[in-house]
């Protein structure tokens, strides 16, 4: 049954394949990108995310499958006739034109009067916070300003989809954080579907409505940020998104929608079926647990489930302290993150510690 409240798909990818000679760059990508969402393609370099973006833009021919844009098959439609616009990694600002000429470049064939063009360019520059910059030479701009010009130039054509190829990777950390929130605000304001390619998992989590994690030309998981972080579909996704502890475990039984596991060092736990992305057959398995899902108990604190261990390493970050703690009876140390608060001590190496844990935070990988 179709969910009537969900917006319609603007892009439909049906079993998209791409070969470069013998190299299989895209291996059957199937996904729907919804109208008006901020969608991210996340993955390590060489996973095919940029190839997929360029295929949607029309810069790469696909070897198999279909790309539908607003219901129309894009086969044989050139990049210059697709209702998509792109913000390039290098921004690709035309150095021989002024800022205004850059932004108005795409309006050349729109057949509108000069006054109308000037007004639209002014509005677009205003929108990205560069009002009054129209007459400046493009090559004299800073990195952040180039990025804004590239955005204005792409958005002025009111594309159905805006494609962003690692747009923040060339900026310094502070500028990047500022542009992240600004891009998000801009996307809400114009309501256009944004597709962002990035290798930075934090950036994808911060900005996206949904994220497709790609490895080796395939989508490993497509989910909203919270689901992706809490319930990674595989160990590899869990490793790629944030930090995750992996503990050897034994699946004892599966009954009544609950999976019983034995985790050395922690004890026995009952997991809901939703916490097991793969099959949960009895036998050896692995448990994934985020560092913040484990809590060091200080004097006088109690918890339902407690596991004793020894502090092996302490890393102090100012706001947080990360501990490597070896649980009694466990083969490896687990990483635990604790927020530093007034009155809360920082434990030293060799100190014993009691860890509180919660079975609801666990993910089982078969």
């Amino acid at each position, binding site marked *: 049954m179709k969910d009537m409240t969900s917006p319609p798909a603007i892009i439909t990818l049906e079993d998209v394949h791409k070969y470069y000679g013998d190299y299989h760059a895209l291996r059957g990508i199937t996904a729907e990108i919804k109208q008006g969402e901020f969608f991210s393609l996340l993955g390590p370099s060489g996973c095919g995310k940029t190839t997929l973006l360029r295929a949607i833009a029309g810069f790469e021919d696909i070897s198999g499958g279909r790309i539908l844009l607003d219901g129309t098959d894009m086969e044989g439609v*050139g990049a*210059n006739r697709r209702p998509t616009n*792109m913000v*390039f990694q290098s921004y*690709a600002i035309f*150095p*021989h034109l002024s800022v205004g000429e850059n932004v108005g470049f795409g309006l*050349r064939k729109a057949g509108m009067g000069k006054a109308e063009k000037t007004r639209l360019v002014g509005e677009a520059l205003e929108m990205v916070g560069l009002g009054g910059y129209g007459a400046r030479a493009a*090559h004299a701009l800073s990195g952040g300003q180039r990025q804004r010009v590239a955005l204005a130039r792409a958005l002025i054509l009111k594309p159905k989809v805006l494609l962003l190829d690692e747009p923040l990777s060339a900026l310094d950390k502070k500028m990047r954080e500022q542009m992240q929130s600004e891009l998000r605000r801009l996307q809400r304001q114009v309501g256009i579907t944004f597709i962002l390619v990035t290798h930075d998992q934090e950036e994808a989590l911060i900005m996206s409505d949904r994220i497709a994690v790609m490895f080796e030309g395939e989508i490993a998981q497509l989910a909203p940020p919270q689901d992706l972080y809490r319930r990674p579909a595989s160990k590899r996704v869990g490793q790629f998104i944030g930090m995750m502890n992996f503990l050897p475990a034994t699946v004892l039984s599966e009954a009544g929608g609950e999976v019983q596991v034995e985790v050395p060092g922690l004890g026995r736990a009952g997991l809901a079926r939703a916490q097991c992305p793969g099959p949960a057959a009895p036998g050896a398995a692995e448990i994934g647990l985020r560092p913040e899902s484990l809590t060091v108990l200080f004097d006088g604190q109690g918890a339902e489930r407690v596991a004793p261990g020894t502090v092996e390493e302490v890393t102090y970050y100012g706001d947080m302290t990360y501990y490597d703690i070896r649980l009694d009876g466990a083969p490896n140390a687990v990483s635990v993150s604790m927020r530093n608060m007034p009155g809360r001590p920082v434990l030293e190496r060799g100190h014993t510690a009691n860890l509180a844990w919660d079975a609801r935070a666990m993910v089982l990988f078969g």
Partner: protein
Amino acid sequence: MKGRGLHVYAVLYLVFLYAPIILLPVFAFNDGTIIAFPLQGFTFDWFRALATTPALHEATLNSLFIAVTTAVLATCLGLFAARAATRYSFPGKAPIVGFIMLPLVLPEIIVAISLLVIMLQLGLSLSLWTIIAGHTLICVPFSIAILQGSFANMDRSLEEAAVDLGETPLSTFRLVTLPLVMPGIIASLLICFTISLDEFIIAFFLSGNEPTLPVYLWGQLRFPARLPVIMALGTILVLLSVVLLITAEFFRRRGLRRAGLPDSGGFL
């Protein structure tokens, strides 16, 4: 002290290189037909003689026609080759580019003789066009070397951005590619022009009864009395070459500046 030795060497080297050229203007204004010191006095006679020699004017016009045509042809060919070499990969690319660049290191006398043999075998009569063909052959490598730099410096996504914004490949070339490589094109035109203008060996072998300026000059050397006139002409040619080279370098640097790129060499 080692540093001083190298310094002296550098100065001697430059004197050896440029002293003969300085002799050109010195004797061009010397009031005497014998090229020897001591100087006889100051005169403009030799420059006046230049103005009243029709054969010289004809040779000059021939040379200008050849140089302009060669510059345009070589730059067009260089533009295609440089774009192909920097933008596309195709089978046999390295040997193809290598063979195009070969005339750069091939002795000109060999190029000249083989061209002459081929032209005669084909039954082509020698004319200004046979010289243009020869000059284009040796100028194309220079043009490619300059334009390859221009294309390599150009961000490839600039062309994609133009296409993405609705332009066809052709209008993209006109609106984005051409303006951005224009400094390279101008530099290539000027350098090819200069090379063709003072090229002697190919012109000597391939010219029929229409000599170019260098060929005419060589012919005049048989008459010792004409030597000061040649000195005057040489003075003008040196000045012209220097002006052209500086102009070419100016455009190359302006191109880099416009594109906001660091300078990585060049001819000057």
